[in-house]
């Protein structure tokens, strides 16, 4: 028997709702609030049950409009690479600073997506980020931590 991906997602949501409900029951409320008509865990408990009901209904009821997705045409390679690049961007943004990490992220993303116009790759990375940083830091007074620019003396 073949189970549709939407039903698998609903099953995962059912499990998630069960976990949410369990965690909701574990919320520590004040002793005097235990028997109150409403306390910090009342709403989450209802939500947990609602999640269980809707996902169970989807699993049990026949699918009227199945979502047809051709898994063979999906571009896993580029998508996963972009996600990894974003994680690395998040990892480096505080350590090496906004300017370098953003510019490198942009250059690598353009290349991963197949761009080979090197002049545009350059313009839309380092100078573009520098102008953007000037707008934020110089004009809008939004502080941007950048150890690299501080090291070379560009930023105070």
């Amino acid at each position, binding site marked *: 028997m073949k189970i549709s991906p939407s039903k698998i*997602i609903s099953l995962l949501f059912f499990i998630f709702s069960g976990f949410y409900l369990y965690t909701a029951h574990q919320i520590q409320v004040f002793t005097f609030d235990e028997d109150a008509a409403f306390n910090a865990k009342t709403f*989450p408990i209802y939500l947990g049950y609602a*999640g269980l009901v809707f996902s169970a209904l989807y699993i049990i009821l026949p699918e009227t*409009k199945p979502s047809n997705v051709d898994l063979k*045409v999906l571009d896993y390679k580029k998508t996963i690479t972009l*996600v990894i690049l974003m994680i690395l961007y998040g990892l480096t943004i505080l350590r090496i600073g906004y300017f370098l990490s953003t510019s490198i*992220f942009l250059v690598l993303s353009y290349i991963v*997506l197949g761009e080979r116009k090197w002049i545009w790759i350059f313009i839309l990375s380092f100078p573009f980020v520098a102008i953007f940083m000037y707008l934020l830091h110089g004009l809008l007074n939004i502080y941007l931590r950048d150890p690299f620019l501080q090291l070379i003396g560009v930023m105070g």
Partner: protein
Amino acid sequence: MIEGIFIGLETAFSLKNLMMVMIGCFAGTIIGMLPGLGPMTAIALMIPITYGFEPSTGLILMAGVYYGAVFGGSTSSILINAPGIPGTVATSFDGYPMAQQGKAGKALAIAAYSSFAGGTIAAIFLLIAAPSLSKVSLAFRSPDYFGLMILGLTAVSAFSAKGHFLKAMMMVVLGLMLASVGQDTLSDIPRFTFQNMNLSDGISFVLVVMATFAMSEALTIIFKANDPTKVAKQISLSQLGSIKLDKEETKKMVTTIPRSSILGFIIGVLPGAGSTIASFLAYGMERNFVNDEEKQKFGKGSINGLAAPETANNAACSGSFVPLLTLGIPGSGTTAVMLGALLGFGIQPGPRLYQTNPEIFWSVIMSMYIGMVILLILNLPLIPYIARVLATPRTFLIPLILFFSVTGIYLMSFNNFDIYMMIGIAVIATILRLYDFPMPPLILAFVLGGLMEENLRRSLLISDGSWSFLWDRPLTLVIMFTIIMIVGWQIFKSFWKKKS
């Protein structure tokens, strides 16, 4: 009211705010024009910037972006048959055939004039309806608000899910679950934080909007290996033809616009219905109103067929502000994003907004109108140039969207945790989108989560823990009955479809 209008005009006509409307309309047009990116993404990308401004300025910018994005969506519908947003799908039925006949300029002009006229008529309605409804809504109590919020969520799920009602309801629950993370507002008890300090303040609204719209839309384009800009490269965008309309064409528009505006505004006010339904209904209605000869032209480049949905979708946009400004309850995903931004400014929309912050209330209404004027006089002549944006390669477009998303959230929190969480939510949202789990109900639920819990808390405490508050007041009873009707109809429709 007159005094309020003057306050609004004064605020909206300040140099800074006029600049913001212009920037908003321009940026919104460009973003809305890009296929796959709609007003929600456009507004989401603007939120981090608006937090540096006064609330009225921020909202004016967002209102400009909203109208600009709707106009941009129409442009891509007409020029490349790729609607930027669902609300402009009906525009492509007659707009694209006109463009293929070499009348792209004319089609764009009809779209712009119709949008302007629809928006103008709807703005007048809004001007009259909003204060009156504000007074009426003062009679609403917590149970009514709680009921209205469930009604809004159910209606959005029913109308926006395109036959995937249960999936939409799961998204509603997920949105409410995400909103419940963090300290309880009344008791400060941490919930679902797993002893992580980064979660104690809850999940940021901007983070969720950016992740589920901007970032996940960009990832979906790559994942599905779509190149929405490919078609644009194949057509000559500089040869759009004349934008002048003759007498006969103007006459046709004059008859279509008033009826489509009224329909659009009424549909826009209803929770969940929005511009998509308004534009389709207006298209259908117009087809029934015209003579047989004109009826034959529908789908082949009819002026009435283009003017009707364009008028209605803009009128619906204005209409959707009525429940937001008067009840504090958004009726659509886009207005939910605006509500989230308002809450971020520390402003609670609702019946009292009209009295407590009249400058915001009126300046937003006035800015909408100014925005439409700007769209007409600034964007229309610039369309041949703006349309070149359609040909921006996705190899540049996608990384830039990802960059703006990450930067947006980084500027708000300055920590890596939020960036990772945003990437995680975006990846999950991309998979969910792939299998038609709609995102607007999730956003609406996330925004309403706190308010819903608050109103349920008050209702249950007043009724001493009894759920009888749901049927004690006639108004609540009517709301609950409507919810049951919507849910029942959706379930019946599912079974009936399967059997037939």
